């Protein structure tokens, strides 16, 4: 293993960037490929698939044997609002393998009694999220119904290219939300990424069913995500 590859790979892991270490098992040569980096041919296709599935494995390409070791950051869900939907979303998200955290400045909502042993932060999203922790491997769900609490994290999640941004509220509520976010300087292309009303349309009729619809939508966004969009953005800022 090239020491430079080892360093780059560890750096990617520390900074929550997805990377694949490609090793030619025939001659031992290796290279690190980051998500969104273009690799041509059959190997490139195999790398793309590996990023999406998160699965490491051997690929036989053009008579050579490659091992693709995928290092994808743990996906997590940040929920704004310690509401009834969140109480159902937390356990099912854990079962599906997500890290989940709930943020709500209203201490009556964000109480351990209601949520048990999870990361629960009774503080304003402005205070919690200023560390720049939102990233492309984070899903953000804003479910308080309160613009004072929801708007800021939604805007930050869009700027941080979170793979999923969902917001609770009727189409009318969402229309008003879009006006406020536009006034904050967000572009329509960014605003189009908000899933609202939140959750897949499965006719969910209560908080628990809405939680299922939300989690299904998050999984769909994760597995079908298209990082070519990020790639073009990177190219524009480079």
């Amino acid at each position, binding site marked *: 293993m090239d020491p430079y590859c080892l360093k780059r790979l560890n750096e990617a892991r520390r900074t929550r960037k997805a990377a694949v270490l490609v090793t030619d098992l025939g001659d031992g040569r290796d290279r690190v490929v980051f998500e969104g980096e273009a690799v041509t041919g059959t190997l490139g296709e195999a790398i793309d698939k590996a990023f999406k599935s998160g*699965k490491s494995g*051997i690929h036989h390409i053009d008579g050579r044997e490659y091992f693709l070791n995928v290092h994808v950051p743990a996906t997590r869900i940040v929920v704004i609002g310690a509401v009834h939907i969140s109480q159902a979303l937390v356990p099912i998200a854990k079962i599906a393998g997500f890290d989940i*955290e709930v943020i709500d400045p209203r201490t009556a909502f964000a109480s351990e009694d209601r949520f048990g042993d999870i990361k629960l932060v009774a503080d304003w999203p402005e205070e919690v999220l200023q560390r720049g922790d939102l990233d492309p491997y984070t899903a953000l769900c804003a479910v308080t119904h309160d613009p004072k609490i929801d708007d800021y994290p939604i805007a930050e999640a869009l700027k941080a290219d979170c793979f999923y941004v969902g917001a609770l509220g009727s189409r009318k509520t969402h229309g008003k939300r879009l006006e406020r976010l536009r006034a904050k300087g967000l572009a329509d292309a960014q605003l189009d990424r908000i899933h609202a009303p939140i959750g897949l349309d499965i006719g969910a009729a209560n908080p628990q069913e809405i939680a299922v619809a939300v989690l299904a939508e998050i999984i769909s966004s994760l597995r079908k995500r298209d990082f070519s969009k990020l790639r073009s953005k990177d190219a524009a800022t480079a």
Partner: protein
Amino acid sequence: MTAIETNIGSLSAELDIAEAWMKEGREVAVATVVETWGSAPRPVGSHLVIDDQGNFEGSVSGGCVEGAVISEAGDVLETGEPKLLEFGVADETAWEVGLSCGGKIRVYVERVG
């Protein structure tokens, strides 16, 4: 206030150890599970890292084949030539250090640098 903690896949903490050892000037070999069949205790991509003194961290099995991998790593460190090892119940020589779970694994062992 609790900050949102970044979560790094636990599969690869060994790679941080490998880098730290390398910086200390130790010779380091990395063993990686590249393929599994049947019930294998550690998933594809798992690492065992070994230094020139025989110190090791991580695992490529439930402990059944680590000894053999560590001994092969000694050769790899000496020659610099990577090795592809196969362990499983089907192989008679591997039986002695075989996988009690009945699975079969391939392990790639390489020197860093």
